[in-house]
């Protein structure tokens, strides 16, 4: 192979190695510097530039919300386990299984309503502009997944049914 070509390929490889090494080191260092796993609310402070007073109000709301959320989640988990035992043995969807599904759906709806209420309360504890942004972001993150799934199932994402 041509000597010049070998030199150029070697230089490119060395450059790529320097770039990759510095990239991964910097990424790792930044991630370990920025992460504070102990505090769930750290993201709010960083993303919405909240003051200590805002954070204190939000922390109070957050700590009040968590036990209620955990209680409903435990109920959902218990109902799901019961559903599994009901559905596990049979091959048909019995009335009992249907009732359990309705119960789970009701609990989920209750939990979602409580969650949205919490988001609204937190957004009110923030400065107005940040509160609006927070609420929009949380709706997108929590309700968006259902919307995406429903859109894809109903065929609204591009194709329409031929009648």
């Amino acid at each position, binding site marked *: 192979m041509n000597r010049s070509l070998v030199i150029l390929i070697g230089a490119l490889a060395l450059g790529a190695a320097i770039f990759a090494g510095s990239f991964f080191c910097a990424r790792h260092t930044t991630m370990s510097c920025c992460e504070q796993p102990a505090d769930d609310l750290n*993201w709010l402070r960083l993303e919405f530039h909240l003051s200590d007073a805002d954070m204190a109000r939000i922390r109070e709301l957050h700590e009040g919300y968590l036990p209620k959320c955990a209680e409903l989640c435990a109920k959902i988990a218990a109902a799901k386990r019961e559903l599994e035992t009901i559905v596990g043995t049979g091959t048909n969807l019995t009335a009992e299984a249907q009732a359990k599904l309705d119960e789970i759906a009701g609990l989920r709806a209750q939990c979602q309503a409580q969650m949205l209420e919490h988001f609204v309360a937190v957004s009110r504890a923030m400065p107005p502009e940040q509160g609006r942004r927070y609420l929009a972001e949380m709706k997108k993150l929590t309700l968006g997944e259902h919307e995406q799934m429903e859109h894809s199932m109903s065929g609204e994402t591009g194709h329409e049914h031929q009648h």
Partner: protein
Amino acid sequence: MNSQDQQLQSLLRTARTAPVLPPRFQQDVWRRIEDAEASAKADSWLDALASLVLRPRFALAAAAVMFLTGVFTGTLEGRQLAQREAQMNYLAAVAPHAIR
């Protein structure tokens, strides 16, 4: 030059056979010349670049640029990842996956 020499020369001229050139001989010759020139140009371009790369000042500057670009993009990426992780932590606390 005497008359015998002249006779000999004319005899030799008539005796010499003109070689039959292969078809498209001239075009092939020109093509070969062009190919040789093109190859020489490419080689010189690569050589120039290789000699530039081997210059210590250029090599050091290129390495510094690659290093700084890596640090800059890595820091940006790290910040974005850390922010995303913090967002996921918050989301996991307030909106468990079972209800999303």
